[in-house]
């Protein structure tokens, strides 16, 4: 039991570090570029140097790297000042593996290199307003018209739709068969006529997602992945590749920030950190936070010996989000009346952090699977408990009760 790299990992880390130090773009190289241009600049250089998408098979321009090597690269990349390249993650992490499995050689040759080099950005068009936790209940329909399909309907929660070049799309091609059997999977040019993108404003005030409306959008049948009716299986390829969350429960309010706050605000004439109620709360949160951190170490260790991260990784989000919400709320309470201030211009050092978390966390408890779905995943996929009775199995989609 130790925290060191294996010999191979250490060698890989050194190699990565050397390349990164030699190739990290300088401010001068990127002068005048906006965030997107910088991301593309850096991604292109990584691709040229053979350091983009290292987990991909060599045949597709990757290195056949292991999960732990990807982690090591990310750790090293975080140490040098390079542009953030999160905009490529859906295309590289979800669309690309799906294309590798289901597209023909021509489509692969057209798109995969441009995904690796950051020339194209892709988005994912799966979720729908009526879907939510029940992803396969989607209603956007595709009707065949000659060699094309005509798409009508609405998608939601699409990150980056407004700056994406292409999208992966699941639609219903046959509503008369059971839910999972009537779906088909396409990719499309996001500039196609009839595609309309509207940002969704969140309660935090930010807009990280979009609604995407389809009005008689034409997609050539050649852009279908998998057979007609096979869309759910293709989707599973995409979803299985959703990047395993191996973080320590995401951002938001942390032990360290609340503890620091507690040193500055007063309770009953003394610093709050001396108050035993504050200390007990902090201690319990520290235990959760440390538990998540060391759980991620265990996951890294498993990756290090080649294991695949499993559904137990749902813990991070499930525990981390609720913890952050309660910590943010508690920190605001410590500030007393000033705790309500959310004013970056006038703010005390800590305040904005807690109030922003307070407003952002309700989204984190929902996005990517609600607390309730995460608990189901742990119950069913980790502990092997039975599913609940399903009222939507084996009947035509049109006959599944929808309440409307």
């Amino acid at each position: 039991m130790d925290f060191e790299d294996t010999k191979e990992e250490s060698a890989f880390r050194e190699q990565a570090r050397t390349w990164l130090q030699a190739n990290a773009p300088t401010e001068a190289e990127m002068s005048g570029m906006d965030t997107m241009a910088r991301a593309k600049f850096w991604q292109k250089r990584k691709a040229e140097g053979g350091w983009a998408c290292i987990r991909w098979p060599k045949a597709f321009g990757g290195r056949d790297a292991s999960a732990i090597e990807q982690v090591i690269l990310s750790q090293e990349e975080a140490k040098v000042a390079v542009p953030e390249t999160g905009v490529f993650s859906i295309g590289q992490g979800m669309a690309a593996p799906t294309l590798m499995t289901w597209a023909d050689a021509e489509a692969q040759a057209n798109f995969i290199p441009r995904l690796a080099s950051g020339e194209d950005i892709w988005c994912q068009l799966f979720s729908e307003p009526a879907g939510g936790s029940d992803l396969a209940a989607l209603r956007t329909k595709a009707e065949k018209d000659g060699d094309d399909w005509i798409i009508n309907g609405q998608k939601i929660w699409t990150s980056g739709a407004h700056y994406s070049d292409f999208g992966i799309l699941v639609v219903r091609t046959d509503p008369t068969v059971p839910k999972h059997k009537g779906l088909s999977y396409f990719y499309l040019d996001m500039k196609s006529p009839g595609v309309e993108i509207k940002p969704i404003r969140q309660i935090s005030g930010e807009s990280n997602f979009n609604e995407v409306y389809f009005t008689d959008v034409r997609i050539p049948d050649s852009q279908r992945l998998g057979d007609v009716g096979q869309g759910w299986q293709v989707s599973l390829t995409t979803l299985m590749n959703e990047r395993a969350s191996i973080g320590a429960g995401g951002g938001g309010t942390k032990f360290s920030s609340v503890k620091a706050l507690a040193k500055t605000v007063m309770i009953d004439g003394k610093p709050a950190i001396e108050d035993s109620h504050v200390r007990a709360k902090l201690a319990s949160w520290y235990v959760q936070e440390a538990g998540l951190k060391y759980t991620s170490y265990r996951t890294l260790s498993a990756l290090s010996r080649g294991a695949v991260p499993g559904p137990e990784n749902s813990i991070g989000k499930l525990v981390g989000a609720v913890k952050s919400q309660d910590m943010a709320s508690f920190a605001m309470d410590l500030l007393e009346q000033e705790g309500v201030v959310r004013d970056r211009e006038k703010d005390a050092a800590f305040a904005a952090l807690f109030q922003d978390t307070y407003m952002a966390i309700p989204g984190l408890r929902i996005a990517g699977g609600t607390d309730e779905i995460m608990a189901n995943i742990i119950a069913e996929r980790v502990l092997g408990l039975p599913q609940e009775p399903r009222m939507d199995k084996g009947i035509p989609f049109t006959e599944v009760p929808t309440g409307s």
Partner: protein
Amino acid sequence: MNFEFGEEQNLLRDQARGFLADHCSPALVRRVLDGDELYAEDLWHKVAQMGWTATAIPEEYGGLGLSYLELVVIAEELGRACAPIPFSSSVYLATEALLLAGNAAQKEHWLPQLAAGEAIGTFAYSEGSGQPSAERLITQVSSGKMTGSKAVVADAEVSQLMIVVAKSEVGDGASLYLVPTDQSAVHLETVKTVDPTRNHANVRFDEADAQLLGQEGQGWTLLTQLLNRAAVLLAWEQLGAADTCLEMAKNYAMGRYAFGRPIASYQAIKHKLADMYVKNTLARSNAYYGAWALNTNAVELPLAAATARVGSSQALYFAAKENIQTHGGMGYTWEFDCQFYYRRAKILALVIGSEGVWQEKLIQASDELDVA
């Protein structure tokens, strides 16, 4: 045993609920949330016309001379509707401070205006982050002139008078003052908060005219009594909001289907809503007791007020956050109304001291009453 509201109060509740359904729709709340208004002035005038601002003010000062049982009924309904008006500042705090400590002249001058809703009042005691205490007060008054500042004062920007706690060299270390805001020595600076439907400002007093309210050196004692009253009234407002959250969550869960059945049929949601119901019900029962203690000025008021306040603060936080959660992604959008109550929950929870402050008051009050 008659631990229930009377018929008149039940009629008032129906009337208030109907009135607010008509005049304080979610669209109105949203108008203030999205726009530049400091409060819904149109609603304020209608509420004043209904006489709500006059409820517990004696008739001799232009009030209706009703009891606190009527006022808590109104408080609950305003909470339910998430009304974007300075009712709590003006009625539970400024008006109550005058009733508690004002001399005849002060009452005669201000109470009729407050009763009619022509004047709006507020209360300023915090001077920065953390718990206020008499020892830490900096704002002070010398020869009738106030110098200092107060932080994050609710509704300061729309108030004509402010009840201010300032340092005193004698007695309990503090005195209350009445400060009219229409003087150049009172400086306001807008503060943005998590709830844009209620305005807040930092206030600076630069030799501002200030009248003593109540006895010199009795300010902290009066403050404590005032906050006990406000705690009960706020508890009812919080409770109304918490009940709306439960109702919204329930309605959404009944209509939203997943995997072929309403999400309200899944135990994860059923038990979440049952939990909300339980917390709201216990908080309501404690609020009943608080209302009784307030209305009879019972010796139990400090304990009853703290119990009501803690229960309602906990219930509303839970209901507001789990209402969003029950709505899923839609609940997190600006377009949906769940956010109103999540924002308001924190404003109401912190305006007269956090849950922690009132837990401490509760235990102290239980000592004084010798409850175990």
